[in-house]
């Protein structure tokens, strides 16, 4: 029989195509988003000017400024920049208190700390909004009392450049008055829960003082930007890492390669989870296909009996039923590919706009799509074996009476 005959059994054909299509849509959209997040993070790591990260948990690196100076003196190192992050209470007089994620850094390090794309969100004047590029308070100099606030916080506390705000470890603590020297565009532009996530950026040593970490000179991480000839030579990077490990055995030291490896390990775990969910959805979808095909064979019992009586061989019956369901699985899979890509893209756009980021969180690799398609088609073919076998094994006499399949 011609393959077009399949579509004359409309309900069976459409339900089968739909079930396979939904499975493929689920698998492709989930895989696309998982790959998209992976690629995005990988892209961030690759674009980052930090070639080695030294980190300690919970402000765990003490003497941050002095370690930074020592490492800066190493011949392989172009620059070292430190980062400290914590939550601060922000009070705008008469307009309430909000909690914001505070980022402490030395302004002149910002060009290394932020990507070029990120820096476009900050003011042009001075050093990204700060009047001085260095961190004067760190060397016993005066406080600058300079703070940059993000656009979400500026909007909600009605703050603008030139205003004064209070910063403290908590809302009940004594506030230190800072001058808002600039407003930068928040990375999170969404209207969902992320609209209430605020950021402030201030001099590293002043954040240390606010958090009571000035004496220990504690920071979270130190980022090493290596000389251009070193950063491209993986063996030199590895040697430097070993040297740093010997110098600072209590800190976690990771090269870009290590970061990517760690991320790949996490992705592998996520991939396992995703694969399990995907396989369950695939199995449910294809069992559904199997059920539809079995019902179809049962409904066609008499027809199959008549065909057998006419001299149609068991092999031909098997090929016909198996061929029919395989064609439907193939078509459902093909239909599911563009739909899965569309659904994945739509979901990614929705999440990105909810979070307020402009990145594309979806990536469809032709190899992944081909793998998913082959997986679905193979499992679909396996599932189709049962109805085909049932049809082939029918007893002619009882089948002609419309009896048991």
């Amino acid at each position, binding site marked *: 029989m011609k393959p077009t005959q399949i579509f004359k059994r409309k309900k069976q054909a459409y339900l089968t195509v739909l079930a396979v299509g939904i499975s493929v849509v689920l698998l492709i959209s989930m895989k696309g988003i998982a790959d998209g997040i992976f690629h995005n993070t990988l892209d961030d790591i690759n674009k980052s000017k930090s070639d080695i990260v030294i980190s300690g948990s919970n402000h765990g690196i003490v003497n941050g400024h002095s370690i930074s100076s020592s490492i800066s003196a190493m011949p392989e190192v172009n620059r070292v920049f430190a980062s400290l992050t914590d939550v601060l209470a922000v009070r705008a007089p008469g307009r309430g208190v909000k909690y914001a994620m505070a980022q402490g850094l030395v302004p002149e390090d910002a060009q290394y700390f932020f990507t070029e794309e990120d820096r476009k969100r900050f003011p042009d004047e001075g050093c990204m909004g700060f009047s001085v590029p260095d961190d004067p308070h760190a060397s016993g100099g005066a406080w600058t009392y300079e703070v940059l606030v993000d656009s979400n916080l500026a909007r909600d506390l009605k703050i603008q450049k030139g205003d004064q705000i209070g910063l403290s470890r908590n809302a009940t603590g004594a506030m230190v008055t800072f001058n808002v020297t600039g407003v930068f565009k928040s990375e999170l532009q969404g209207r969902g829960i992320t609209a209430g996530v605020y950021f402030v950026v201030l001099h590293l040593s002043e954040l240390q003082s606010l958090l009571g970490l000035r004496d220990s000179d504690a920071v979270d991480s130190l980022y090493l930007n290596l000389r251009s000839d070193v950063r491209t030579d993986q063996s030199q990077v590895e040697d430097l890492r070993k040297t740093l490990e010997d110098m600072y055995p209590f800190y976690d030291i990771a090269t870009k390669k290590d970061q990517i490896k760690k991320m790949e390990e996490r992705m592998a775990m996520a991939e396992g989870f995703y694969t399990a969910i995907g396989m369950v959805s695939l199995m449910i979808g294809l069992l559904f296909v199997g059920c539809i095909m079995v019902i179809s064979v049962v409904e066609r019992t008499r027809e199959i009996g008549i065909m057998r009586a*006419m001299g149609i061989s068991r092999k031909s019956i098997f090929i016909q039923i198996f061929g029919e369901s395989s064609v439907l699985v193939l078509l459902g899979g093909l239909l599911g590919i563009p739909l899965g890509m569309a659904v994945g893209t739509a979901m990614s756009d929705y999440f990105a706009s909810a979070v307020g980021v402009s990145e594309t969180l979806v990536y469809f690799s032709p190899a992944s799509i081909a793998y998913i398609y082959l997986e679905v088609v193979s499992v679909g073919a396996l599932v189709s074996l049962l109805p085909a076998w049932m049809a082939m094994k029918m007893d002619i006499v009882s089948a002609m009476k419309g009896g048991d399949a």
Partner: protein
Amino acid sequence: MIELKNVTKLYKMGDVRIKALNRVNLKVGAGELLSIMGPSGSGKSTLLNIIGCIDHPTYGRVFLDGRDVSKLSDRELTRIRLRQIGFIFQQFYLIPTLTARENIELPMREARVPREERRKRVRELLEMVGLADREKHYPNQLSGGEQQRVAIARALANRPKLILADEPTGELDTKTASKIMMILRELNTERHITMMIVTHDPTVAKKTDRVIVLKDGTIEKDITERAEIRKL
């Protein structure tokens, strides 16, 4: 052409064994047109199924053209059914998703008849049964009589030597039934196809040359005299 020797068929229904055919002996010559009559449960359809290589006898032997088919494998029986036997059923049993032409082509496709030859035979057969203009119609677009004529054309597709018809006029009105019988009669006369027709209807049996009457799985009467057949 056909010879049955002591053919017995037993069916198991739960713990009960039913004797559908009991030591049936029968010889049918090539080109005969005969009918099988008998009350329900007398074994008519079982006899037809065994002769048609659809079912195996429990005991006894069946010969088709001198060849013992009672012990042949499923594959060999399928081949015999495809190439030597044509079936016509009471309820026509056309494949609903295929057109008249495709239904007729189906056994020819299985027999790997070349495309051009298939088309030629389909045209001839549809013309023979008077349905040349219904080639592209689906079964549900045809009347009962037309469907049965397509079924006859399908049964003739691979040019069988034997046609087995199980109540071929059972679902048709008298006029249409008469036309169908005329076609079967012509096929028998002009193409010398051996024809066995199971029927309840004496008017159908009267149009055949020999009537076998079955009762409780045995041949009660084997009528060959025209005068006796007329009395049915």
